[in-house]
């Protein structure tokens, strides 16, 4: 497909353009190409890329996700059309075998090519210890797509799998073996897991946690021999004479730089391998650069992708003539979730720095371990280890990267919810603070971009690349942009969307005072009078519901609803829906439980208990929803609103009725609260919890509203959150009787519904509120704005107008029509296909769909 370009290039060769040749099309080699395009290097050079692999660069970092989808396209990084447009020649399946440095020519398996500048991005390969027997066909490594394909094939015939190596990648491989359904063992030579990133205590907690997930961990084991087994394919013998039988082995004993090509070409290598480079990423030959995992800088190999990306952009700048940009090392801090366990490591995790001080916090009940390492005077953060809870990671990382002075008692940074633990605001970050580590974008890069006129997140993404990698920095980038805009005196535009020049708060107020009841009135009187869009429609729909709580599928309201509200179920990835009836307070009779079971069986639904103490039924086809709900409603169930931004559940512990510690009836209160607030549509979902004593078994402090019984009444907590940004709720008021408690919650919910931004949880709403929790107390308890009565009245309207939307819907034959998949046929969607897993259905993936045909069931 590139022949026309070969022709084109040959022609242009007469015009004396020289070749820039890149060896390796891995993640870093590909990133270099992107940087070369940005630096307009193709105006001066013909760019050639040689790759040993048969497929263009793919996202190795996400490699394990391949086990979920088996779809190479989802990992692909290269846009071949872009390579074509930019006249970049990609030679796939062509190994570069040697470099003739004197004549500046490379030799490959298929050809020869002269170069002006050569960039080596050959990456690394997995190290396999030379144990006798390691070449057995059931021994694998974990690095490429073909490795994963081979493991998957072999796993089908296997029961037991062993990973040799208990580092970061080894544990990722163990996770994969678990997911493939194998009994999984991890064998580690050292006495602990993840020895590079964690200290002894962190390592042993991690071990405990992953053992409780069913992974067998063997530390201090020196593998001596691999031979044929008795019960299983293979037998591993250790130096201490113990043995382990297994069907497959995955080696993950570290990586080695791929420096073979450099070696035969006599470039300088490190003692233990790696192509030596200087700060300009140049090797010992000034026409040859090396970047990524094959490069050795200051005696170090960087086994992460971000430092490789930095090297790539340094090399591209150097080649473009910008000699000021250099590589000065990289931070190797990491935060990840391994087998579901959160782990974080920053800087000097082992406290190896002379005279450093280590502060540790260990919570054996919640299985959390945290350590910070500071300088001898306690003023600078040198390192940290976090296991079981990494919510402090970002905060600590900013202290560490920016050398910021620590508070007088540094331990407050890791102790749980102590008042006064400083969380860094944007203004506190120095200009050099790294905001996006994937593309190493600093705070000053972003402020410059803002100053140069990039005022929206998408502009910032385009001109700095920030937030286009893993996306983990998105919130931080947004906060920096808003901070800079405010600095510039530019009003931060919080308008709902391009159709309205009001914020959500303003619209809420205007809709209420003008008593608007449908979208047409709102957009003609308050907006631009158009059709609106997918942002303003659901937001206005939610406000209308918060104010008037009318049936959401009324003709004028139906088109405003997200598909979840529209079909009164949560859409799943394959277009089926989930069915979640309300089980107030988590209390259910055996009879009703049996109805759930029977219904699930009749309609072949996947059944799962949720974190909110109720039962989800998944895989319901659109056309079955009304039949399923008819059955449930006849048995006395009502909708659980799992599909709506509204009250979800009130979780409760069993409380004083049964529990020997309980001091009040937590279940009774939870049921009251759930029935009181069900159907309240709000800017985002709302969750509550009620515990019967301070032991807090209902985890109420992680909810928007939490209630805990004491000897003297109820304690009220607000603005907690679980999920991606966990936050402990703040204690708001103590020792309340039930009537006062309910008053406060009424006012709290309505004030939130009035003033929060769209899709803003209570925790973020409160954090952004000037005056914070104190101000909230003034408004809700002291009634400083004089609106308490109004708020209670508004809540009363919502409560009075409650209806079970499913009940209304199944009684209305007109509304039922839309649950047929086709308007002009009674067939179903033949793209919905299930396979069996652990005795239940799950959606088939793309590969499976090709082999299984859809069957019509009635």
């Amino acid at each position: 497909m590139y022949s026309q370009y070969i022709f084109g290039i040959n022609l242009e060769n007469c015009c004396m353009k020289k070749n820039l040749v890149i060896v390796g099309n891995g993640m870093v080699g590909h990133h270099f190409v992107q940087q070369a395009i940005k630096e307009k290097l193709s105006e001066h050079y013909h760019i050639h890329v040689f790759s040993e692999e048969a497929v263009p660069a793919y996202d190795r970092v996400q490699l394990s996700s391949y086990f979920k989808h088996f779809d190479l396209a989802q990992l692909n990084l290269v846009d071949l059309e872009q390579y074509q447009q930019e006249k970049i020649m990609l030679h796939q399946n062509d190994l570069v075998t040697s470099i003739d440095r004197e004549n500046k020519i490379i030799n490959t398996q298929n050809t020869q090519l002269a170069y002006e500048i050569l960039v080596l991005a050959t990456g690394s390969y997995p190290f396999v210890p030379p144990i006798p027997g390691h070449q057995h066909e059931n021994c694998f490594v974990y690095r490429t797509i073909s490795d994963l394909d081979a493991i998957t094939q072999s796993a089908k015939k296997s029961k037991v799998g062993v990973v040799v190596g208990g580092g970061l990648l080894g544990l990722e491989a163990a996770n994969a073996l678990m997911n493939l359904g194998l009994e999984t063992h991890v064998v580690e030579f050292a006495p602990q897991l993840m020895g590079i990133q964690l200290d002894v205590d962190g390592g042993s907690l991690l071990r405990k946690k992953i053992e409780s997930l069913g992974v067998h961990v063997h530390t201090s084991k020196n593998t001596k021999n691999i031979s044929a087994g008795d019960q299983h394919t293979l037998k591993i013998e250790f130096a201490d004479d113990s043995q382990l039988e297994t069907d497959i082995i995955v080696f993950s004993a570290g990586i080695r730089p791929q420096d073979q090509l450099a070696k035969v070409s006599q470039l300088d290598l490190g003692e233990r391998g790696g192509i030596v480079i200087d700060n300009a990423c140049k090797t010992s030959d000034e026409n040859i650069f090396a970047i990524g995992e094959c490069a050795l800088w200051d005696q170090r190999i960087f086994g992460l992708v971000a430092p490789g990306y930095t090297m790539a952009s340094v090399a591209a700048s150097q080649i473009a003539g910008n000699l000021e940009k250099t590589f000065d090392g990289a931070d190797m801090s990491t935060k990840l979730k391994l087998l579901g366990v959160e782990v974080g490591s920053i800087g000097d995790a082992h406290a190896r720095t002379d005279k450093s001080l280590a502060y540790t916090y260990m919570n054996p009940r919640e299985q959390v371990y945290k350590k910070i390492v500071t300088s001898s005077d306690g003023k600078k953060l040198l390192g940290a280890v976090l296991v079981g809870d990494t919510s402090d990671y970002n905060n600590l990382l900013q202290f560490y990267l920016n050398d910021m002075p620590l508070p007088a008692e540094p331990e407050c940074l890791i102790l749980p919810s102590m008042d006064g633990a400083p969380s860094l605001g944007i203004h506190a970050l120095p200009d050099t603070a790294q905001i996006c580590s994937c593309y190493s974008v600093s705070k000053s890069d972003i402020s410059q971009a803002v100053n140069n006129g990039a005022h929206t997140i998408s502009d910032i993404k385009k001109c700095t690349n920030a937030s286009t990698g893993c996306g983990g920095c998105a919130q931080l980038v947004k906060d920096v942009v808003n901070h800079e805009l405010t600095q510039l005196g530019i009003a931060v535009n919080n308008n709902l969307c391009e159709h309205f020049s009001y914020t959500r708060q303003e619209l809420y107020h205007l809709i209420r005072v003008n008593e608007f009841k449908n979208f047409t009135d709102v957009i003609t009187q308050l907006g631009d009078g158009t059709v609106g869009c997918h942002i303003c429609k659901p937001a206005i729909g939610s406000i209308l519901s918060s104010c008037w709580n009318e049936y959401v599928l009324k003709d004028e309201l139906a088109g405003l609803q997200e598909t979840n509200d529209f079909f009164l179920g949560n859409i799943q990835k394959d277009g089926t829906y989930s069915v979640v009836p309300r089980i107030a307070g988590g209390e259910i009779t055996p009879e009703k439980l049996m109805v759930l079971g029977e219904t699930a069986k009749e309609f072949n639904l996947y059944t799962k208990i949720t974190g909110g103490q109720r039962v989800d039924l998944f895989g319901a086809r659109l056309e079955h929803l009304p039949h399923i709900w008819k059955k449930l409603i006849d048995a006395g169930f009502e909708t659980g609103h799992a599909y709506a931004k509204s009250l979800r559940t009130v979780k409760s512990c069993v409380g004083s009725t049964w529990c020997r510690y309980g001091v009040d009836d937590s279940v009774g209160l939870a049921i009251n609260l759930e029935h009181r607030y069900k159907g309240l549509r709000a800017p985002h979902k709302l969750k509550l919890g009620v515990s019967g004593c301070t032991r807090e078994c209902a985890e109420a402090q992680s909810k928007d509203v939490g209630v805990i019984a004491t000897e003297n009444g109820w304690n009220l907590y607000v603005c907690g959150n679980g999920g991606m940004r966990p936050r402990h709720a703040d204690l708001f008021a103590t020792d309340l009787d039930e009537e006062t408690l309910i008053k406060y919650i009424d006012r709290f919910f309505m004030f939130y519904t009035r003033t929060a931004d769209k899709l803003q949880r209570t925790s973020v709403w409160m954090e952004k509120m000037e005056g914070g929790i104190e101000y909230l107390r003034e408004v809700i308890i002291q009634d400083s704005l004089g609106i308490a009565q109004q708020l209670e009245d508004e809540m009363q309207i919502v409560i009075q107008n409650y209806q079970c939307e499913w009940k209304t819907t199944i009684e209305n034959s007109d509304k039922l029509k839309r649950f047929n998949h086709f308007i002009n046929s009674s067939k179903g969607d033949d793209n919905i296909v299930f396979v069996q897993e652990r005795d239940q259905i799950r959606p088939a993936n793309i590969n499976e769909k090709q082999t299984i045909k859809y069957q019509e069931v009635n």
Partner: protein
Amino acid sequence: MIERICKLNDITINTGVVALYNEKQVAIFRVSDTEIYAIDNFDPFSHANILSRGIIGQDQGQLFVASPLYKQRFNLQSGQCLDDEDVKINAYETKIIDQEIYIDA
């Protein structure tokens, strides 16, 4: 091939339905009494047949539907994806005759 699909009033204003047209799933949207649009129901991003269930919107004069799964927007007239230049799905001609909707493609 012209084919009758349904009555105009079978579709609530501002929402969509799915029609089986020539063995294919086609999403049909009613924006007003005179504006009916038809595009593929298959969402190339999620590989699910769900575009009819998206929200209709307008961006600088272009009418679009936003996929209910991952929110990519598709122009209702041309099928062009507004969030990815490289993706375009089929659009179909529609007609309203005597309060009945037809696809004519």
